[in-house]
């Protein structure tokens, strides 16, 4: 039986809302993670019919603080344009749930949390690199346990972008009876070789940082800040389009009007350095390794005998697939693959490619067509809820 606790996070000294499942969770890798801890936030109220729950799935470096000030950074939540009163995911109407993913570092079971043995006994040290490998499916199973705990039998919708979109697809495949509608945004049924390659650069940067200490940096009172920052900088480039970078920074210099060929700093360099250094304040390097691996492992077709369509055979779920024209990390072609697999099983699917020059990150930004699409789709789904 689960108990809700507000336990302090070992390293950050911040209290996250969490639920502990002493029975743990059997992972795809064969390990039983015991106990399972899921940190989460909810917004709005579950109605009496329990028919208005929407699960938001966060991306690689996101967390459960969707629509409120982040307790670590003090910045607004990561999807305050989408989730909130009167917004497309309207917290006046919907009961919105978001959980920190398994392997994350905002309070859910992950490398930064205290290691436990097979019986769930604490070992007096963080998991670090000993944390068992997790998959997108494991993340979804952990979320399903949270829904049980919250008394949500069926989701009105599940929505997420990027890795969040992978979870959305996995939800629909794993629990078709618990999902009425699904909105996978800027995502794919598998990580491509190019996607994996970029992740590997980030992982190598972390590994190469002398402060990494084979993942046991806590022993030395340091964090591999330079490696993690480089990982973030590389990844951040993949989230933006060339047009967006050119528009934001061009070739402008931070250091002066003209090149001096000595200590010049381009605006784009300064921006990336800022992105890297602010990221290390809030993110754990071992978590980054763990979650990027989970994304690389993801292959919905492989989970279903080599066919994405097989994952969705006879699915009752209504899908709304959304991509962005300038996203080269999860390009529209990847979304179209999802749509074609859904068409092959005559599933109910909407598909929009939104014209934007903002790249992969567009799903987090102010894109009126995205908001219109999501609110319209949810309204259409609400007419058909059963």
């Amino acid at each position, binding site marked *: 039986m689960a108990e809700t606790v507000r336990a302090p996070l070992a390293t950050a000294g911040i209290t996250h809302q969490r639920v502990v499942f002493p029975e743990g969770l059997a992972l795809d890798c064969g390990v039983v993670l015991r106990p399972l801890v899921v940190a989460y936030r909810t917004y709005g109220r579950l109605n009496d019919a329990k*028919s208005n729950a929407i699960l938001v799935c966060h991306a690689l470096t996101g967390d459960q603080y969707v629509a409120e000030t982040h307790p670590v950074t003090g910045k607004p939540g990561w999807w305050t344009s989408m989730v909130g009163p009167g917004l497309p995911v309207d917290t006046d*109407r919907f009961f919105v749930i978001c959980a920190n993913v398994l392997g994350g570092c905002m309070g859910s079971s992950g490398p930064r949390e205290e290691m436990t043995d097979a019986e769930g006994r604490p070992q007096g040290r963080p998991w670090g690199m000993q944390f068992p490998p997790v998959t997108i499916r494991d993340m979804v199973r952990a979320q399903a346990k949270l829904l049980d705990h919250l008394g949500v039998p069926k989701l009105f919708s599940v929505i997420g972008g990027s890795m969040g979109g992978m979870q959305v697809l996995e939800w629909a495949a794993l629990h078709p009876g618990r999902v009425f509608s699904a909105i996978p945004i800027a995502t794919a049924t598998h990580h491509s070789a190019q996607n994996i390659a970029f992740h590997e650069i980030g992982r190598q940067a972390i590994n190469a940082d002398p402060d990494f200490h084979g993942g046991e940096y806590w022993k030395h009172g340091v964090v591999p800040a330079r490696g993690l920052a480089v990982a973030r900088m590389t990844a951040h480039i993949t989230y933006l389009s060339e047009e967006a970078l050119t528009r934001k920074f061009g070739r402008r210099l931070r250091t002066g009007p003209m090149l001096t060929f000595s200590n010049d700093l381009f605006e784009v360099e300064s921006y990336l350095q800022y992105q890297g250094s602010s990221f290390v304040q809030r993110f754990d390097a071992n978590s980054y390794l763990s979650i990027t691996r989970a994304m690389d492992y993801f292959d919905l077709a492989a989970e279903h005998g080599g066919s994405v369509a097989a994952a969705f055979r006879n699915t009752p779920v*209504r899908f709304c697939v959304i991509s962005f024209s300038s996203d080269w990390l999860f390009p529209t072609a990847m979304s179209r693959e999802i*749509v074609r697999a859904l068409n092959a099983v005559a599933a*109910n699917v*909407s598909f929009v490619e939104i014209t934007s020059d903002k790249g992969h990150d567009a799903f987090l930004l102010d894109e009126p067509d995205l908001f*219109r*699409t999501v609110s319209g789709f949810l309204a259409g789904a609400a007419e058909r809820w059963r």
Partner: protein
Amino acid sequence: MPEGLAPAPRTGRPLADRLDLRLIAEMVEPRARVLDIGCGDGALLDILVHEKDVDGRGIELDMALVTAAVAHGLPVIHADADTDLAFYPDAAFDYVILSRTLQATERPREVLAQMLRIGRRAIVSFPNFGHWQVRLKLLLTGRMPRTKALDRAWYDTPNIHLCTISDFFALCEADGYRVERWLGVDEAGRKTPWRRNRWLANLFAEQGLFLLTRE
């Protein structure tokens, strides 16, 4: 259902203008599974879903129209009739509808074949190039005829595969489709008095509307 959720209003042309869509809707049985190809902003789907309780889907090539339809709560995907019908399974739909779009496809014969593969029935409407005004304009001016239905110059029209009602009958016969019902209608979609006679319809109807099945 969460209370107070209403779909965005449809932004396209008022339905009163589209009697041809009404005629198509009349051909569809309630609660059927329907695919509307080239569904635009979803005007026909809207009627079918809300008045006939069909399980309706749409595909559309123009992204602005797709967004409008989805924002209206209709299940529409961005796809191309020429390439994407192949991804649907056999007999997935009771009706596959192609309203005023056949003439704009790259391979109309293949599109029709796909429609009758994935649907038990196909409903097709198209502008009739055999209409007397078209014939007369070509005869008298020697220029490509332009009418209310075909209002673009030859060099920028999307209508690349025009046909007459008689041509369409001939294709149905050649490819073994049974014409279950057909109508000659005017531009506004009103049924016309000569709808019973193929020869007269081919001369006077501005649009042909066909309900086909595989033989």
